[in-house]
């Protein structure tokens, strides 16, 4: 019973706890250990009929005590001296704040104003995604520190040996300490630039969960959940940053389709064939709201905003046929001017094919292939999209060849099965 209360609290309280402790202690490892200790104690001590009135405050106080224990126990003199300042800060927090841990209404240390808590959490996220760290380290640190995933969980989500992930985290923390990477909220003039790298990390976690290129299963839902949770957190912490709101909208709207994306046998189901009644209406509603909130700001659309608008156009269509493809093509046009990547060009061509027919789509794709937009030849979705247009035009031989190239490039089991089926279909038609 108490286990489940603690489990429930974990998602909500962990990032706040770590964020505050990192600021107070200036030591990521120590903050993490202390937070973990507090949760272990909570699981141990709390009884269903006797839980603290303010569990967040209880956890914070306990974590601070454990941190002080560690600091005091630490035999390394130099480290001890360095920690004295933090120790003094912590002691004053505890002395000033608590008499009994379970005392109702005690102004506990986590009664730091809401503003301070927002700053602490932002500082933690911005620190984990600091540009002086490489992307892999940013992702791992964010999942560990902000989401509270264990090293083992992160390793398995990324199909990496646990030892490799542990080494990556240690290396990142060493750099944070030795190069003095600050865990602070960036100055206003730096905020947008720094926010970009945070949002990129969240987006990357989502796409990793969603595409799972190397996995047997198509969607690793746990990473999608973490990414959506992070995006939601950023949108709540920075409600006047349109791209933060937009990313949250995008992930909600995309993830709403998750239940329909894979069938009961684990096979990939394309957007066109999905049972739209399975889409998560609640997530779509939240995504729509978030996108509307983002649209209240500047008229210049960002990349997440446009992608969210595209996702919303799909979410609002009753069927593929009733989708406003012309509108979607125009979003892709805008997106391509902001981000002229091969992937965007490919998606745009696919939308053109729906809006104006497969021959128009094919012409768009072939124009791309000639121009130097590149890397598309090794991109499985390019060949799959092309194959699909050829199939619709009943050019079976060419379609089969294109599906085959896509098949050669995929490492994903359910995509593999899907493409094999399509090849078989082309063969029968020939």
């Amino acid at each position, binding site marked *: 019973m108490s286990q489940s209360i603690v489990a429930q609290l974990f998602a909500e309280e962990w990032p706040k706890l770590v964020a505050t402790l990192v600021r107070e202690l200036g030591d990521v490892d120590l903050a993490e250990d202390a937070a973990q200790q507090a949760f272990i104690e909570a699981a141990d001590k709390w009884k269903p009929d006797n839980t603290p009135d303010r569990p967040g405050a209880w956890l914070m106080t306990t974590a601070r005590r454990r941190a002080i224990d560690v600091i005091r126990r630490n035999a390394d003199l130099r480290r001890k001296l360095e920690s004295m300042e933090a120790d003094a800060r912590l002691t004053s927090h505890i002395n000033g704040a608590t008499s009994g841990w379970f005392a109702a209404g005690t102004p506990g240390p986590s009664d730091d104003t809401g503003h301070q808590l927002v700053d602490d959490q932002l500082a933690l996220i911005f620190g984990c995604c*600091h540009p*002086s760290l490489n992307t892999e380290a940013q992702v791992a640190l964010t999942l560990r520190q902000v989401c509270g995933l264990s090293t083992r969980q992160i390793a398995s989500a990324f199909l990496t040996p646990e030892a490799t992930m542990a080494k990556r985290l240690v290396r990142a923390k060493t750099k944070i300490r*030795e*190069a*003095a*990477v*600050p865990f602070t909220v960036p100055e206003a003039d730096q905020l947008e630039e720094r926010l970009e790298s945070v949002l990129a990390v969240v987006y990357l976690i989502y796409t990793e969960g969603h595409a799972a290129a190397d996995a047997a299963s198509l969607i690793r839902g746990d990473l999608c959940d973490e990414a959506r949770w992070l995006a939601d957190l950023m949108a709540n912490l920075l409600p006047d940053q349109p791209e933060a709101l937009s990313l949250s909208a995008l992930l909600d709207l995309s993830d709403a389709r998750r239940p329909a994306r894979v069938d009961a046998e684990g096979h990939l189901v394309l957007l066109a064939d999905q049972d739209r009644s399975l889409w998560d209406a609640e997530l779509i509603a939240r995504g729509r709201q978030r996108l509307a909130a983002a649209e209240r700001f500047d008229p210049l659309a960002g990349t997440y905003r446009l992608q969210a608008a595209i996702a919303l156009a799909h979410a609002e269509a009753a069927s593929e046929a009733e989708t406003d493809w012309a509108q979607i093509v125009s979003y892709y046009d805008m997106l391509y001017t902001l981000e002229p990547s091969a992937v965007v060009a490919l998606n745009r061509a696919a939308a053109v094919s729906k809006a104006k027919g497969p021959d128009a789509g094919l012409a768009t794709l072939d124009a791309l292939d000639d121009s130097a937009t590149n890397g598309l030849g090794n991109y499985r979705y390019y060949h799959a999209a092309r194959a699909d247009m050829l199939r619709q035009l009943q050019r079976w031989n060419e379609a089969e060849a294109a599906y085959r190239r896509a098949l050669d490039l995929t490492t994903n089991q359910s995509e593999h099965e899907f493409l094999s089926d399509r090849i078989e279909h082309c063969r029968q038609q020939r």
Partner: protein
Amino acid sequence: MRYMLLLYSADGAGPAPGTPEHAAEMQEWFAYTQQLEEAGALLGGEPLHGIDTATTVQVREGKTLSTDGPFAETKETLGGFYMIDVDNIDQATEWAAKIPLAPYGSVEVRPVMELG
């Protein structure tokens, strides 16, 4: 926190000596160094002669080997350094970005190991 800013650039990447651009850049270097000094961040810094003047020394099995040239052949070579004292990596990289060589070379920011 002390940081070493190591200044690298490719041969001939900056303005050529004797040109007005070079003279203008010299003024920027002086101004930059002065800014560092006024901010109380400057611990030291010097430009170095080119790699043509470098000698690499190694002791192997008790024998001293001196070779003409730099240790490693790379496109960008070390041309100077600053040692600064600031609060954190953000401030260090901010100073690094202001170095006149940054638009055409690279500045490696390395935290100094504090001993004892």
